């Protein structure tokens, strides 16, 4: 095993660092937070190749793998970037490249690589909490397609997506479908989330989807949604690592500069030990984010699922610890919007609650023991 970055990977990491430095320094980010995701920035990210990363070369992409995705996500996490990314640049291209029809690939992968199409993963439902298999959205057969009725819950960036990736129960198994966000019968209620990003409740009321928009076979949808979610989990775990690593660095900086009783508070042993435990938490989360990157493309289903759940559970647990302790170490200022600390804490909290929290993924892992 070799954990060092090769030349291309190092360049990618440097690119991310520069991007964040130029566009996402604290004050710049506050402005972006107030204004919401920016099309100009999305274009810039596309120019950097970030949307082409997971698109195969044959379709105009870079055809990179899970490791490169991890590098990008860690960078986005360090910068607390709010632009929609995971569903459009990781989940959708991988899903379509792996399970899509040739027609779907031709239709979608090019525009994805160019950053011109946005996707959202809309697989969870209002009463399902984190259970993918609890699908109450119904798909009824009608000539050459399906009629969908149902609702999807807390869809990250659901209100800025062009296409929704949706599960629906056909009566003979669940199908995974692409739904045009502007199709008749689609109602998208967007709202802000605690971390300054956005999500949406989505209602499907007699939405017509034709067969060309079904991914894989109808009946295969649950497995595909599970696969797609695992790609997302691996990405979120890496983002969390970036965020908590940066937050730990900020905390250590604070400890070395902030003085009390005439000495830097970092000279107090209890706080040194706390910093050590935060650093250890980051290391554990990073180890499993790497493991997830290693296995998320595996055809061994149990291996893939275990890896994704382990990484997400650890990201949640470590993120919670690091977020809480960073706030504590920053004192009152850590409780305010005026330092970066609290923004990291909020994003880490939101990541934990997305697509299954720590408890959910520990349970999912336990079922695979």
């Amino acid at each position: 095993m070799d954990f060092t970055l090769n030349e291309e990977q190092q360049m990618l990491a440097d690119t991310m660092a520069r991007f964040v430095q130029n566009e996402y320094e604290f004050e710049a980010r506050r402005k972006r937070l107030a204004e919401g995701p920016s099309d100009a920035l999305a274009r810039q990210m596309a120019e950097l190749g970030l949307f082409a990363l997971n698109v195969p070369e044959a379709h105009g992409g870079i055809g990179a793998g899970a490791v490169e995705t991890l590098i990008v996500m860690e960078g986005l996490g360090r910068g607390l970037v709010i632009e929609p990314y995971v569903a459009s640049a990781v989940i959708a291209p991988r899903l379509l490249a792996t399970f899509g029809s040739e027609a779907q690939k031709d239709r979608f992968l090019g525009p994805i690589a160019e950053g011109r199409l946005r996707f959202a993963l809309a697989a969870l439902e209002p009463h399902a909490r984190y259970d993918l298999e609890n699908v109450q959205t119904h798909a009824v057969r009608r000539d050459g397609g399906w009629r969908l009725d149902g609702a999807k819950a807390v869809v990250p960036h659901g209100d800025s997506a062009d296409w929704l990736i949706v599960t629906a129960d056909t009566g003979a198994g669940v199908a995974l479908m692409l739904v045009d966000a502007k199709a008749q019968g689609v109602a998208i209620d967007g709202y802000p989330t605690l971390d300054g990003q956005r999500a949406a409740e989505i209602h499907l009321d007699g939405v017509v989807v034709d067969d060309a928009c079904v991914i894989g076979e109808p009946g295969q949808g649950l497995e595909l949604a599970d696969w797609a979610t695992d790609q997302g989990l691996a990405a979120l775990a890496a983002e969390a690592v970036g965020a908590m690593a940066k937050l730990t660095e900020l905390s250590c900086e604070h400890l070395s500069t902030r003085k009390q009783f005439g000495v830097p508070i970092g000279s107090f042993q209890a706080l040194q030990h706390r910093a050590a435990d935060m650093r250890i938490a980051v290391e554990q989360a990073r180890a499993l984010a790497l493991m997830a990157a290693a296995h998320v493309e595996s055809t061994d289903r149990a291996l893939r699922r275990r890896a994704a759940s382990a990484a997400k559970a650890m990201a949640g647990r470590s993120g919670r610890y690091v977020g809480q302790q960073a706030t504590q170490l920053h004192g009152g200022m850590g409780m305010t919007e005026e330092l970066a600390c609290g923004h990291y804490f909020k994003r880490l909290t939101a990541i934990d609650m997305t697509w299954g929290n720590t408890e959910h993924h520990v349970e999912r892992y336990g079922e695979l023991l």
Partner: protein
Amino acid sequence: MNLHESPEDAAFRAEVRDFVAAQLPEDIRQKVLGFLRVPREDYVRWQRILATRGWGAPGWPAEHGGCGWNAVQRNIFDEECFTAGAPRQMPFGLAMIGPVLIKFGSDAQKARFLPRIVAMEDWWCQGYSEPGAGSDLASLKTRAERDGEHYVVNGQKTWTSFAQWANWMFALVRTSADAKPQRGISLLLIPMDTPGITVRPIRTLDGGHDVNEVFLDSVRVPVENRVGAENEGWAIAKYLLGHERTAIAGLGMCKRLLRRLKELARTQARHGRPLIEDPRFRDKLARIEIDVLAHEWALARLISLERAGLGLGAEPSMLKVRGSEIQGELGELLMECAGPYAVPLVEAALEFGYDGPTPAGAELNALAGQYLDLRKVAIYGGTNEIQRGLIGKSLIPL
């Protein structure tokens, strides 16, 4: 030992409970229990209801308009009010400047301010902390220079809770530079509408606005507004910080959060059944309820020992630490109840009466903010690190 509540105390508890149930306005109760924003007038409204009943100042002696209750009664009162969803009685007048005036104030000051505190005709804020100084009072920088019958105050205060709503501030200021740091401090009472005062909000993680920076730029304060002798403010400050040490246990808040958590665990579902029936979540509920019980009995024991004159060592610090840990955990569990619906945060829905859309109702919408906000309990009133240091040093003879 008598480990059961005395009949008198039980009767008192019932009396408080009935009163709160009957008199606490329903809209206020809903705001408080739903973790919605509580506006200024609600605090005033509830305080006046209490004052009308004669319960405006639980901690004060009767001759100053207080209830003259003992520690057990005060604790019962707090607990019942909190659990039922009453807004907290603002401490800045009742628990801070009030007791200071009773002990150090002139007769004129007492007559002028004390009744207005009980009736909440004044809203007080506290001018203690300064930027960069943390809890280290000796490094106080705000200066007050004598100019005839006035002090001219220049400096900056921070973490000033509800300064935006206050019409009075009590502030520690430096009135002499040559003395050693602890000396040369005085306590001034400053009307917030005095020219030269600027209040700047500090937004907290939950989007709320409780705390502020307060800038004082040549603010003229009459000398008669000084409490105690000039340069003798240190003793007053210490008296104030040593007051009401058992209140930092936060037991009422723990019980309120626990009650709410159990309600939500009955209405929120996981794998198709109520959370309270999920073995994993039920274990968590059991653990935290056991923690709250331990906290309650530890507090009761401390109050009893204190009444018996057995003295307080580091015990209040222990209660502070436990209370904040429990509140932090309850915040986590409340958020966990909401699951994915803890992520949405529609700020407008934190206002009572909001009837716009929220993804899953206002009650879940408020939980993430509440979780974030509760982290502060481990920081304020002396960080848990400071408390642990006090406890540790009291245990280890060096």
